[in-house]
């Protein structure tokens, strides 16, 4: 991260512009919600905007666009574990333990029994 006075002075305008862009994206999020889009499409739009806003905060306000490799390494590890955590709900869908199995009807016994 460049934090000498000259580059900090040059960044002041960028901070305000990013703040304004985040507010505009918030307005777009609320406006998109009023359109009553189909649920899958609404979720996609809302999450794309949220990810965009989050990336702007992380890159500019948290200075992640210009950090040391140790920070990137720690965050890469976090991202991997986070991805595993987010995939847990899908494991629950794939899991059939505890799901009632359909009853086997008369005449459907496996051959030889």
């Amino acid at each position: 991260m460049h934090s000498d006075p000259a580059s900090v002075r040059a960044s002041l305008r960028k901070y305000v512009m990013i703040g304004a862009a985040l507010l505009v994206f918030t307005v777009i999020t609320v406006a998109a919600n009023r359109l009553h889009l189909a649920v899958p499409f609404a979720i996609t739009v809302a999450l794309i905007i949220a990810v965009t806003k989050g990336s702007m905060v992380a890159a500019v306000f948290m200075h992640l666009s210009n950090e040391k490799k140790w920070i990137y390494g720690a965050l890469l590890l976090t991202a991997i574990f986070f991805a595993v955590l987010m995939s847990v709900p899908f494991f629950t869908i794939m899991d059939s333990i505890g799901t009632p199995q359909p009853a086997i009807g008369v005449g459907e016994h496996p051959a030889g029994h």
Partner: protein
Amino acid sequence: MNIPYTVEERPDSGLANGKLGIWLFLASEVMLFGALFSTYIILRTGATEWPHGELSVPLGALNTVLLISSSVTMVMAWAMLKLHNWGRHRLYLLATFALAGIFLVNKYFEYSDHLARGEGPSHSTFLAIYFTLTGLHGLHIVGGMVVMAYLLGPGARLWKQNPDQFTNRIEYTGLYWHFVDLVWIFLFPVLYLL
């Protein structure tokens, strides 16, 4: 005895201890909120019906605006220290503190409105996860305000003794604060809009 690498960067990592420390802390926070978001997905996909429009979108949007504005004032508070403008720094940090306070006041009205109607966490699965997620986030806001109050009050003395170390403390507080803002950026659409 002085603690090493509070200001100067370590030769191995190129980072001051506090910087690496706050990022590791934030990594653990990602996992904490990640677990709750994962729980939310499980509860929502497993529910036969999910309430829509139970929360006040204008109030949620206003809180989003407040937190985004507080992120701007927080980064400006740090930038002003880098430019050795103490007066402006105090003003921006105070503004961040005030915006956080207004956020909590809004949240108080939102909570009390629900509770007055008997809609506590035990009322439905949606309200249970809503109160858990926003309650934990609210505690993070309170934690940030406590640190800011310290840096506005007794902690400000460090500026005269060791300005670089004080600037680093503001930077780490800012990193935490931006993370709290980032979490809300995801909470708002997930809870209020979808």
